[in-house]
């Protein structure tokens, strides 16, 4: 489960720290205490920045770092696609072998495939992604709460 890529992101996180943003959310994984404060900044529908602070395990930390690397600079539609693909992978219970198409979308994030076998850790990997989804809904209007429920 601890792929080299994950450990790299954990040890050298991308874009960590809180910077200016359009919306801020604070998410907690109550089962293990992982926390993240995350801000998004949009330029129209382009993601200008995702900044974050948090504490948690290597999986949740690395996942936030990967998120930052993948999403910053992307258009919202593309970002959504990435988020949904990542969610699909993480909910696959280890039964999904990422194919080339998926690797193209997820890049470094495919390294989390192994995590999906560990139900207790899936939430760690998803924490920042759920926070991003929530923050985006807030920043661009729309019912953040409704989004969280269906997440």
């Amino acid at each position, binding site marked *: 489960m601890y792929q080299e890529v994950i450990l790299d992101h954990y040890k050298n996180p991308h874009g960590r720290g809180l910077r200016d943003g359009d919306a801020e959310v604070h998410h*907690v994984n*109550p*089962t*293990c205490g992982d926390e993240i404060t995350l801000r998004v900044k949009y330029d129209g529908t382009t993601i200008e920045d995702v900044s974050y602070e948090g504490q948690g395990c290597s999986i949740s930390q690395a996942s936030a770092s990967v998120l930052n690397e993948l999403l910053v600079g992307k258009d919202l539609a593309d970002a959504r696609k990435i988020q949904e693909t990542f969610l699909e992978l993480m909910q696959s219970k280890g039964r999904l072998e990422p194919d080339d198409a998926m690797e193209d979308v997820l890049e470094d994030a495919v390294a989390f495939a192994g995590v999906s076998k*560990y*139900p*207790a*850790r899936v939430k760690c990997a998803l924490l920042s992604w759920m926070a991003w989804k929530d923050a985006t809904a807030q920043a661009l209007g729309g019912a953040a709460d409704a989004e969280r429920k269906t997440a």
Partner: protein
Amino acid sequence: MTQLPGLLDTEAIRKDFPILDRQVHDGRKLVYLDNAATSQKPRQVLDALSEYYERYNANVHRGVHVLAEEATALYEGARDKVAEFINAPSRDEVIFTKNASESLNLVANMLGWADEPYRVDHETEIVITEMEHHSNIVPWQLLAQRTGAKLKWFGLTDDGRLDLSNINEVITEKTKIVSFVLVSNILGTVNPVETIIRRAQEVGALVCIDASQAAPHMPLDVQALQADFVAFTGHKMCGPTGIGVLWGRQELLEDLPPFLGGGEMIETVSMHSSTYAPAPHKFEAGTPPIAQAVGLGAAIDYLNAIGMDKVLAHEHALTEYAVKRLGEVPDLRIIGPTTAEDRGAAISFTLGDIHPHDVGQVLDEQGIAVRVGHHCARPVCLRYGIPATTRASFYLYSTPAEIDALVEGLEHVRNFFG
């Protein structure tokens, strides 16, 4: 051997139940006709229990070690099985409790502590029936006492059915909750769910169904029932003791407050305040009955392999036969419907003025296990002016030969006290 249409292959089935080989009172074959009190357990369920403890035992949720993940998967897998068994729209609507009684108390307490529009208080009414099991009476009496709500109930007709003639007076705009039994454990009556639900929906009351005597014996579809809550208990359906189920509609479970507080049911706790996990966990405080849920899952697998429609047909055939044979016993009076129509396989009766305790004891001496007393439904005994009844109740392993043995045994009882 008596052949009836619709019977299961009991010879094969009985091999799965070790206890049915037991002999009592110096070599008498056990004739177990106390299935409404609790069912026996097939080896498949006992094996699932042992396997759980021998290979996977760990506390569930939150664990990152192999055993904890496996135990959690088994426990939550049992929830999936229950959800499918009752055709629940979502697995998150299935709450594990310790028995049906806790399930029913859980509903009563949720409503007592709820906010509007669910809150039961001194301006509102609770409706039950006179044929409820004490576990569906006392929680509502307690709730009524503690909130000032008024407790009302449907009476019974002489032939053991609900008297719904005054349904519009019993269920009114003030009614917040109607809770009733699907199949009576003492009378055997199968109640007309639709009529009651229709009226309850008219006035916006919630409906809770006690399916303790239904889940073991017939296909159960909570969506078809259209109730808001359905309660049942594991030990009557081939499962272990120590496990019950409450199914509730998701939006209700989201809105209603928790009952027991503690580990597992929280989202986050500080000394000053706590927030709660989403359902079903909100209602499962503390270490749940893990092995018992796994055992119940195995029981459901077992019942599914046979088919609940087949179980129903089997019991219906037995009930028809039993009603007929019991009718041949002089002085025997069935308390409850006297035909097999809309009735389950629990048959209560009196035998002249021989006290049920004596009936049961003399049957027991012949190896025949029946239950005697008021079967946790004393108001029914009061209603029919009897101190108690003798009850024979069947299950998927029961046979016509066992009914014959019962009838013979009753002849012996009559001679003994005659």
